[in-house]
């Protein structure tokens, strides 16, 4: 019970593990490119939680700074990814990634 009531590192890690798992699941199973992107965002958030949690319980600033940069990069990534998605849509008339398999040839 002590473990449940006293919020510690493992709690945050657990949440982040769930977010990561859901993110991966989205990336793996969804055909819609936008949902895949959302999954990626989830993964990134999971990583951020981890960074901040470790930072908190180690007393250093490194995790905080990393989290900050990750957010920035995530924003850039989202912009680029959406641009790509729009291009895919323009070319294939769909955001269904399973139709984007020209790499096979």
């Amino acid at each position, binding site marked *: 019970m002590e473990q449940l009531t006293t919020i510690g590192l493992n709690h945050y890690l657990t949440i982040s593990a769930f977010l990561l798992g859901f993110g*991966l699941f989205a*990336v*793996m*199973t969804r055909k819609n490119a936008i949902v*895949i992107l959302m999954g990626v965002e989830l993964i990134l958030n999971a990583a951020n939680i981890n960074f901040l949690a470790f930072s908190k319980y180690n007393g250093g600033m490194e995790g905080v700074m990393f989290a900050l940069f990750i957010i920035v990069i995530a924003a850039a990534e989202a912009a680029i990814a959406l641009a790509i998605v729009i291009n895919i849509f323009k070319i294939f008339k769909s955001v269904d*990634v*399973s139709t*984007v*398999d*020209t*790499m*096979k*040839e």
Partner: protein
Amino acid sequence: MHSLIQLSIVVLLLPLLSFVILIFFNRRLPRRGDFIGLGILGTAFGISAYIFWSVIVQAYDPAFRIAWDFTWIDLGNVPGVGPLQIKMGVVIDNLTAIMLAMVTLISLLVHLYSTGYMAGDKNYGRYFAFLGIFTFSMLGIVLSDNLFSIYIFWELVGLSSYLLIGFFFEKDSAADAQKKAFLANRVGDIGMWLGILILYSQFHTFSFEQIYANLAAGNFGLSNAWLTAAGILLFMGCVGKSAQFPLHVWLPDAMEGPTPVSALIHAATMVAAGVYFVARIFIMLTPDALHVIAFIGACTAFMAATIAITQNDIKRVLAYSTVSQLGYMVLGLGVGAYSAALFHLVTHAFFKACLFLGSGAIIHAMHHEQDMRWMGGLRKHMPWTFATFTLATLALAGLPLTSGFLSKDAILAGAIGFAKVEGGGIYYLIPVLGFFSAMLTAFYMGRQIWLVFFGDSRTHLKPADTSHQAHHAHDTHATHADAHHSTHAVHEVSWNMRAPLVILAALSIYAVYSPDPLDGAKGWFMKMIPTPATVVGAANPQKGALLTSNAPLHLASVVPSSETAAPALAATPVAAEHAVATAEHGEAKGGHIYSDPRQAEIVHAGHAAHFTAIYISSIMVALGIIMAFVVYVFKIIDPEKTARLIRPLYLFSLNKWYWDEIYDATVIKGSMALAKMLSWFDAKVVDGMVNGVALLVKKFAFLNDSFDKHVVDGMVNFTAFTVNTTGAVLRKLQTGKVQTYVVMLLLAVFGYFIFYFTRLIY
């Protein structure tokens, strides 16, 4: 630097300046710049005359010699030799001074003459440029103080001769002749070059002075045979340039060049360069080498004379007579009549130049007819030419009161003396051939004078079709085509062509050279150019000792023939020592002192034979002239019939002893065949070998290939098959969908998790 040296360098460079100006700018100058060439040569002659005057006339010193040199190539501190430099330099001595004046004078006259003769030619300016470079090269030979620069100018003379012979290069015969001249000269030059190399390899210097000093000191490291070989090889340069047997063949063909060029180059100066060169190296020639030279000279004199009697082309007769006279000079040097040979060189230069220029005037007047058979009767039309031509002819034939008599007689006297000293026998062949040639000379020159100037004009007798005479030389001008043979009247040439004739003819009179019309040795020339002492005696102890044994006897009886009492050439310590020793002997007062006993003997014997020579040669010359009269004036003997009678001999002479044919069949055909063979060898055998190796490698490669195909490749194919099958299965996995790959990736990650934890647990 001595002021005379400076002047001589100016004289040397002036014609070069003329060449440079004219070759580049002749088309932009008025009169194509001929006045530049003429003016420059005039200046050069003026300076040369001053040098001549101050060296010979004003203050004659038998040992006069000033030299100046500069480092041309510095090879640094050469291991085993020490500091080594190749120097270039200029030397002036008595002989140089005379030669300088002679060359520039004749060149000046030829320039003047050419302004008339070459007028209207399309390459008029270039002609004068070529004359300039020729004069430069010739002066270079004259002034050089070392073998290397002589060789350089020697080749340059060859080049200018090449350019001038081929001046009418559009004619195939001219192009052939120029090539032949250059190649024949080159053959001689490689001999000369080897001679130079022999000397250089021993002394590491090219300078005459140092070579002679070393030779006199006995520093020659090789055997005497090498020294003799060096002498003969150096003489080969002369054989080429002075057209001696067996390389004489180029000179008659060289008559393809413009006639004034023939006068300048192929009669007066360039061909004399060979003789001048032999004179320069005279003191290092061993007796054996001198014997070779004497025989070659005699052979040349005789052979050329026999050919000259049957030639019909006016210039060819003169060409062969030149070869013959050059033979005399070489003969003179060979027998040790040094002064006489050089004397003949000078006198011959003037009268032969006169003859060539005269023949040029005749050809010019006859509108480029060169065949004497179609001339005749020109005496009345061309009085100036006739007079000067005849005077020069008399000098050539060696009639008394002419310069030619003085010099030729001195040579023949020397030849008799030589034969006596050497002990007779085969050596008498040399004077005999000399006298016989003198007779032939008189005969063919008499023939020429008669055919050209006397009798009636035979222009109309010329066959209309002249194609069968294509091998005969004809000067061609741009105006040639519109000059029709017989319609134009023959006329005397203009003043600028006449003046040189007169000057040259005047220089053929005995009085210029000697007060005594019968003895050249009393003249200034032979007194001032005495025989120098040899330097090989010291290097040649056996022979020297042999001669020294009876030397005092002859030394004592050397005839005093000059007022000057000084050693001829005291350049070398040994020679000077000899000279002092002989001077102490006391009996040679007032005369030349010959440190070399052999030379002394020959000179002495030559003097003794002086009158013998005069008698014999006068008789021979008279015989020759009488024969010419008998045949051509009185027509007692019909030349045609005689020719038919001795047809083989006649043809032998007419075809120049078949030398051209012999060379063509052996040397030229041989070289070409060898070249063709080697070329074939190169393409088929050497290259064939290469290609054969390539083929072999190729064959081996094919063999390898079949092994490869069936064994190695079989294995490879099996592997490929396996891979192919596996691939066909596995490629199903490649869907092109990124998500599939993500799934697989994560499966792998998960698998690793499992693996890791299993490891951890167990």
